[in-house]
């Protein structure tokens, strides 16, 4: 089994085995990541293909910094490709649900972490994917991929204030979804 360094080296040399190994090892994780950005399996597949093609094309720019650096490098390409895809589809321009319609988030609109831990990862990813494009994107970037509001503002062409408020609404929506899902699960269990 090849390690990351060998995979990177092989891809730089155009080794087909290394290229296939790069795909096999990380495609499922990247698919999940892209799915939570684009919110659709078919779109995610297209973006995943673009991600890998970009990765193979720009493999010479990859620098090994230790174990995990190749995966991090692929994640970064995936996020950028996803954002470009959303931008190309003009899905970042409008928020599906106006912020005003959501009202201020109540203090109790949080999901208990203990209950979140009991949820399946794919279920949570689907909940995130169901968020409106704008909210979902800001939530993904800020909460899951570690971007700052300033970076998000630059990436999406919005103000930091908008980014911050969209994040708050995204959290409210996601918390409600989780609570709703847990409530339904409880009812099924009770029955």
């Amino acid at each position, binding site marked *: 089994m090849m390690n990351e*360094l060998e995979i*990177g*080296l092989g891809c*730089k*040399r*155009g*080794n*087909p085995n290394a*290229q*296939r190994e790069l*795909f*096999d090892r990380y*495609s*499922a*994780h990247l*698919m*999940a*990541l892209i*799915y*939570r950005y684009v919110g659709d*399996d078919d779109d*995610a*597949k297209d973006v*995943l*293909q673009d991600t*890998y*093609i970009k990765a*193979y094309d720009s493999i*010479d*720019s990859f*620098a*090994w*910094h230790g174990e995990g650096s190749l995966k991090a490098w692929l994640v970064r390409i995936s996020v950028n490709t996803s954002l470009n895809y959303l931008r190309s589809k003009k899905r970042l321009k409008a928020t599906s649900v106006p912020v005003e319609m959501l009202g201020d988030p109540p*203090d*109790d609109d*949080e*999901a*208990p*972490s203990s209950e*979140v*831990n009991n*949820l399946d*990862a*794919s279920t*949570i*990813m689907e909940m*995130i994917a169901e968020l409106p494009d704008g909210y979902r994107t800001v939530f993904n970037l800020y*909460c*899951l991929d570690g971007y700052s509001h300033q970076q998000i503002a630059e990436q999406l062409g919005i103000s930091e204030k908008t980014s911050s408020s969209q994040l708050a609404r995204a*959290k409210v929506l*996601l*918390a409600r979804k*989780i609570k709703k899902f847990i409530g339904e699960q409880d009812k099924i269990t009770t029955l």
Partner: protein
Amino acid sequence: MSNNIDNNNWIEAIKQKADQATREVPEGTWEAIAKSLPKQPKLVKHYSSQPKRNYFSSRMWKAVAAAAAVAIVATTGFFIIQDDNNIPESGPITQTPRPTQVIKSVPVDSASTDSTHVSPQIPVPQATLAQNKTTTSSLPKPAVSHSTPSVSKNHSIANQEQNIKPEEEYLNNDFEDEMAEFDPEEYFYDIETMQALEELYAEYEDAMNQEAMDPWKSYSDSSYHQHLTYDANARRVTREKLSRYSNKKKKPTLLMAAYGNGLISSDHDATVNSSSNPMLAPAAGGNNSAMMMAPAAPGMSNTVAPPINYKYHHHMPLTAGLTFNKRIVGNLYGNLGVNFTSMTSDVTPDNGAPEFKQKIMLVGLPFGVKWNFWRYRGLSTFIGAEGLMERVVSAKFNDESVTIKRLQWSIHATAGLQYNFSKHVGIYLAPKLSHYITTMPLNTIRNEHPLNFNLQLGISIDY
């Protein structure tokens, strides 16, 4: 507050789930990707497990390498061009100082003892005129002067050293080697003068033989003894030269031979064009382009101006340069560079003439190795050894340009402290011990102190 903590916790829980999340990849995804990949494996120049250097440093290194290559080629080319120059080298002349002058000769009556009526055409350097037969050993060596201005100047510089060596030393000098290298197309000798000189030698030998055969007839106070100091070796050289050039068809344009080796201590009338030779300048320091040797009274042959001595005050040499260090292995670096050195001296003639300056400019190629044996953060210490090849690009003794072709070689040992501002650039302070192997015909601080100690402060560029 508790809500916030809880809020952060559930977000963190989601993040952990997201990091672990996978999703099934639709079939055909890899095939679609594989179609867009190039069929042939790429040729990769290198792959390093180290973080890749940024683009700027890579470009900068190429630029530095190109600049170094240009500097090396340009400097080497300069040396080659200089080597192609036909101007004779001044080096050997330096070691055999001799005056340069063009002499108008007068017919010689070899039998005459009248100093106002002398023959043959004999070039008489001033230094020779300054001597009598009792001081033969201090007379200057034989010299060959010619019409090439730069050489004439070289000779004049040679004279300033005042190293009029004993005759015995002359016998062992490199004059014969120098003669062997003469190009007859370039130097024209006054054949008649040499013939006359040869005749004079022959007469002297005959006279000495006669004296040996007839001890009662003394020639010891004859004109020969008064005006000649016999030197068999000099005669041999003259004879060889005469045979070598006697068939020369070209019309002699200048009188070129000057034998001041003590062959002739003459009080003949002679007009000496001292050219630009400061040695031949009148004591008063006036017009030194020509001087007339007044006929000397018998026994007063050394009444001409004495040689001029010079006092030197050497200023601190200034060197500016650029050296590039390239890591060979580990902490061992090879270095190559280019530098420029300026040496200035104040020269004071002892004849009362005004002080003037001697300026020498050199361009050099330093090369060597450096070993960084200790390093802490940006600070490092090193020792190194270096060779330096220099070429004199400009040398002026007062207003006279001097051509010095000989490469100047030196070796250096150094130990120093360096602080790096960045990965490749640092400032260093290094004591340096230098030994200058090659000496210059001009009197410089290097000639006086071939081994010296100095302190260097500079900027180092390491790759």
